């Protein structure tokens, strides 16, 4: 068991003929991901790493029964690729692309709400169910199968925490990189809900950062509805207001919302221990497993 993706997930890679698309398709295939198709307008009939390419996502779905996609399409065309993925009624869409204009994402998010598709990202490292499949650019070798769910707005910070978890013997059920943009598909609450319903997940690590109020919403959800224990981490305690810290979404507003302090307090009030360092997060997980 796992959330969002597993070995049966049939993946179409949108933008498979680009540099990123080609490289990570090879990486994913090597990890064991069941990539059944690529989709690039005008490139139908070609192959990439033995994977057949179609002109449209709907064509790929019709021919290969794909039910998920990974999107490597450049920012200028990413929204259209996401609309196409929604139109094709996929179960899961993972958008790796960084730098999608926020107004484009607002429109995508508007339509997403009318579908049953789970969109992860954009600007995210992907989703991995260790030992089974990964959709994205995650370094598969640091993950191990296990019973800890992981949700993170960040890429390399995730790797750091996963590395610590794996080193200490805590494998992962699924890790979901939800992405660092202001508007994303699957947020913390939705991801937490998936893990709460997953019998194969015994504990969850929530790795947040400054900006927005998604961690506060997650704390409220954990407090009110969640039984699976959660351990937390928040990056950006030292970030000054008004400065974008790399991620488009990682910014403490001038009016003081989105601070690490607010998020840490909310989580701790909900009974979630928040680590001061990545290492401490793993200590908390160890405590949870008692």
């Amino acid at each position: 068991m796992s959330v969002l993706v597993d070995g049966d997930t049939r993946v179409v890679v949108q933008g498979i003929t680009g540099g990123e698309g080609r490289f990570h398709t090879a990486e994913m295939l090597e990890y064991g991901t069941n990539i059944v198709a690529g989709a690039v307008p005008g490139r139908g009939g070609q192959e990439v790493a033995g994977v057949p390419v179609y002109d449209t996502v709907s064509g790929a779905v019709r021919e290969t029964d794909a039910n998920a996609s990974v999107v490597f399409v450049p920012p200028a065309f990413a929204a259209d690729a996401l609309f196409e993925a929604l139109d094709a009624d996929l179960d899961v869409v993972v958008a790796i692309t960084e730098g999608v204009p926020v107004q484009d994402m607002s429109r995508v998010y508007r339509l997403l709400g009318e579908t049953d598709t789970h969109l992860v990202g954009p600007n995210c490292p992907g989703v991995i169910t260790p030992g089974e499949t990964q959709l994205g650019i995650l370094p598969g070798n640091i993950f191990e199968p296990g019973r800890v769910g992981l949700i993170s707005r960040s890429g390399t910070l995730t790797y750091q925490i996963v590395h610590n978890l794996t080193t200490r013997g805590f494998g992962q059920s699924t890790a979901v990189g939800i992405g660092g943009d202001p508007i994303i598909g699957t947020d913390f609450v939705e991801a937490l809900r998936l893990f709460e319903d997953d019998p194969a997940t015994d504990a969850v690590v929530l790795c947040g950062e400054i900006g927005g109020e998604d961690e506060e919403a997650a704390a409220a959800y954990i407090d009110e509805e969640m039984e699976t224990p959660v351990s937390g981490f928040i990056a950006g305690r030292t970030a000054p207001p008004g400065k974008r810290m790399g991620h488009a979404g990682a910014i403490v507003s001038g009016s003081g919302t989105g601070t690490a302090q607010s998020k840490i307090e909310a989580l701790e009030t909900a009974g979630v221990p928040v680590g001061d360092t990545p290492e401490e997060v793993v200590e908390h997980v160890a405590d949870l497993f008692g």
Partner: protein
Amino acid sequence: MKLHEYQAKELFADAGIPTPVSQLARTVEEAVTAADDIGYPVAVKAQVQVGGRGKAGGIEIVESRDEAKEAADRILGMDLKGYHVERVLVEDAVDFANELYVSVTMDRGVGRPVVMVSTRGGVDIEAVAAEEPGAIVREHVDPAFGLFGFQARKAVHSAGIDRVVAEDVASVLSTLYGLWSERDGADAEINPLMITDDNEVVAVDAVFNVDDDALFRQPDLAELEEEDAGDELEAKANRYEFDYVRLDGNVGIIGNGAGLVMTTLDMVDYYGGAPANFLDIGGGAEAERVANALDMVFSDENAETVVFNIFGGITRGDEVATGINEALDRFEEIPKPVVVRLAGTKATEGMEILDTDRVQVEGTLEEAVRAAVAAAEVVES
């Protein structure tokens, strides 16, 4: 990306939003000529991209040529919250009966644009928001449909704006939303939107920030960016295409990935140090990019030491180490202690490649940060 007031006003005026008569001036002479042309009283306004210019002495209303000269002389060249004032906008000083506030931004929490209207213009709106949230009316916009005409009117009437000017204010708000939407705004704001004694509506200030991610389709706005003044190091970071934020501390920080770099900052603080900067070099390990990052921190006189924190994923540790070695080759001497920590893919191999005569290598994040903090203290003392 922030536009200057004069740039934003030009955008607004072109779209049909009434703005005062104004001229840009780069010298005292230009400013005085402009003031004479426009007729007194005029406002002389520093063109720097920071808020609270008025309080900081960057705006002055003058009644005569002598006063105009004096004000321009004082403001041009002044240092305003760390920015050097190179231009002033000389502008007809509008007589007013009322000051309103209108703005458009993206409400990330709901994933939709929001327009805001208040009768409490002309003051720090964030203070109003904090003290009297009901004084600001918010109306969310369906991004598929855009701002409906009725929504602009609804917001204006709900805010309690006088019916005599309601239709005009609603029209300004609709235009502002249209601009925001067409020109990929991040924030668009008019504060104050003045109502004159004759019930004319005039945008006396203008803020327009463009979504950086959308500059590719706003080529004319992207060009404006080059005119920016501002912090020298941040300008350099811009050229190098780094995500960079300058801070007050003395521990320089370089890493890959926003979350990991933020965490490194936090840990420097946690172990008693003070971060000098945020610098995300992103993916990849080219020597040039590494060298540029080192150049950034070496150029920062506040930074006493550098911690280099890389977690290799798809990126391989051995390649990063080679990049660091090559980058260091470009410096005749290494001016500040450099602590390197590599983790993830091929990290062990990478650490073996690194030249420990030139850099201090640490095995964990905690150790690296503590070493850097300690080195900074040594240099400091």
